């Protein structure tokens, strides 16, 4: 044993003194087997040119990269397939172009079944999913769940009543993003509830949309609401209509509608960008009661300033639970609240650990 160690020691000291350079090829971890990591260190040689080559199917070495640094890591992701073995060669040249040294390496690319870097994300996913599902089931079994008042929603009844009294329509905008945004879906859910009230009072509803997929969904939602309210004949299919996909083109159109139709109440519920303030200010000038809600942090200030009622961030998503008092929705909300509680506790622990210069928790959570 000792002999081997001495041999190894000698071997390594020879390596050190004989200006050896390091060249290794490794499978890239946590990927689908489509990349190889090449590591090299030729700083002892200070070569003028470093060429990395890979053997092709015919056995020829082809240059894949001129490396400009003496040491580093290069990721070869060009035409690498899982399960195949690749041969690499690294050659060092001096200023005149003579080969100083050369090394080769061999490696098989592999695909992994689990990305170990995402373990913290997985844990959070499981905790949140479990919490939400648990509370949904416990709500279903009849457990009473409390939900605090959402002041932004008190306007709904008032708005519909006012519109009916004045004989003016109600305008609803489900945001300016497509159906692939949760805020749009949250907006449409609220639209369902609102349309039901509108149908009961027999008031006119206007829903201009700027995405065609939202158009078809909004139509179904409104139609169903009229059906539920027992007033299907009052449903006007043209009350939901498309203007244009263009952000400001849409705003120009909606502004025109607001000015001409003078809706008694405007609802802006969904995802909004810069158009938020244009809509809200035009609506104000027409004397409408305005309710807005969005989860876009950058647009909330404008809604808060220019509208009568605002659903801030998560309140938009909580709104449908609040309106329907449906145990499933309330349960899910309770699960989200547990998420917040966990957040507050973990964050506090994290800050305390950081104060004592312990970084484990932060590092673990920043992995993914």
């Amino acid at each position, binding site marked *: 044993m000792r002999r081997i160690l001495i041999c190894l020691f000698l071997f390594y000291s020879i390596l050190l003194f004989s200006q050896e350079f390091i060249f290794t090829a490794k499978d890239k971890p946590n990927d689908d087997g489509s990349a190889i990591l090449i590591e090299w260190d030729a700083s002892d040689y200070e070569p003028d040119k470093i060429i990395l080559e890979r053997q092709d199917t015919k056995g020829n070495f082809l240059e894949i990269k001129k490396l400009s640094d003496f040491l580093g890591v290069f990721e070869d992701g060009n035409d690498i397939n899982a399960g195949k073995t690749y041969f690499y060669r690294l050659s060092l040249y001096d200023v005149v172009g003579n080969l100083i040294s050369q090394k080769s390496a061999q490696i098989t690319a592999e695909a992994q079944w689990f990305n170990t870097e995402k373990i913290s994300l997985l844990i959070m996913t499981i905790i949140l999913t479990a919490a939400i599902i648990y509370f949904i089931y416990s709500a279903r079994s009849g457990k009473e769940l409390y939900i605090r008042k959402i002041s932004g929603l008190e306007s709904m009844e008032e708005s519909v009543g006012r519109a009916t009294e004045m004989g003016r329509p109600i305008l609803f905008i489900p945001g300016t993003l497509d159906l692939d945004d949760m805020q749009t879906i949250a907006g449409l859910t609220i639209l369902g509830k609102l349309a039901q009230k509108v149908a009961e009072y027999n008031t006119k509803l206007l829903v201009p949309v700027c995405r065609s997929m939202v158009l078809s969904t909004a139509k179904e939602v409104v139609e169903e609401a009229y059906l539920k309210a027992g007033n299907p004949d009052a449903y006007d299919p043209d009350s939901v209509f498309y203007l244009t996909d263009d952000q400001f083109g849409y705003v120009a159109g909606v502004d025109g509608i607001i000015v001409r139709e003078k809706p008694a109440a405007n609802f802006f519920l969904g995802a909004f960008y810069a158009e938020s303030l*244009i809509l809200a200010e035009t609506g104000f000038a027409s004397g409408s009661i305005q309710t807005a809600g969005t989860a876009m942090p950058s647009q909330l200030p404008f809604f808060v300033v220019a509208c009568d009622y605002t659903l801030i961030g998560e309140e938009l998503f909580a709104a449908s639970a609040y309106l329907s008092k449906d145990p499933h929705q309330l349960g899910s909300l309770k699960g989200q609240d547990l998420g917040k509680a966990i957040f507050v506790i973990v964050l506090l622990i994290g800050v305390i650990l950081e104060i004592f210069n312990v970084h484990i928790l932060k590092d673990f959570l920043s992995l993914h």
Partner: protein
Amino acid sequence: MKRKIPLIITFTVGVLLIIAEFIPHKPFGTLSGELEEWFLVISGFAIILGQLSLLKVNTFKIKYKQKDWQYSIITLASFFFMVGFGLLWGTGKSSGIFGHGEVISAVIGIKPFDYLFQNVYQHLQATMFSLLAFFIASAAYRAFIGRNLESNLLLIAAVLVMLGNTTVGGLLTSWLPESLNFLHLPKVSEFIMTYPTTAGQRAIMIGAGLGIIGSSLRIILGIERSYLGGE
């Protein structure tokens, strides 16, 4: 069947994508990218639906001479001009049905579609966007009234940041000695933006993030199904 199958599709796809996040192995790793591209194509088809709705509403108005029906002619004309030019002679480097329309480009300088885009569409867009400069002023005048602690905080933060952004704001407090430098208006505005504002925005992001997570889960589990509409 009309409702069950869509719910099953949503459930399967949603769960699959969440699991796929943790599996780099093929075909899971590239799944979400592929599906998002599908979404793009589907929405491409869907856009036709929107256009047809637009055409329907406007022809209806013209046909029955509804209020302001003349304007609908303008809408339809603009729409057909843009689509016609685009499809016939293309835009930028893409060619249309009749190729690149070099003859027309030689007269007006660029392709007709691009001409309308640059000289009409872009100006309309930029002007509509710039209305915000006016509305920000009117909204500020109306709403920034110090009624209670909350509205005072709103008001003070806004005014301090606005002052800090101007050349005048810097001059107002430039006489302050070095030891009170932190009260210099641009510094104050920077402080507000970096700390309390970030905190507020973060709280909103976290809340909204959890809201989105909850909604996604409800949709995947089939609890939230308003997007499917009626029976």
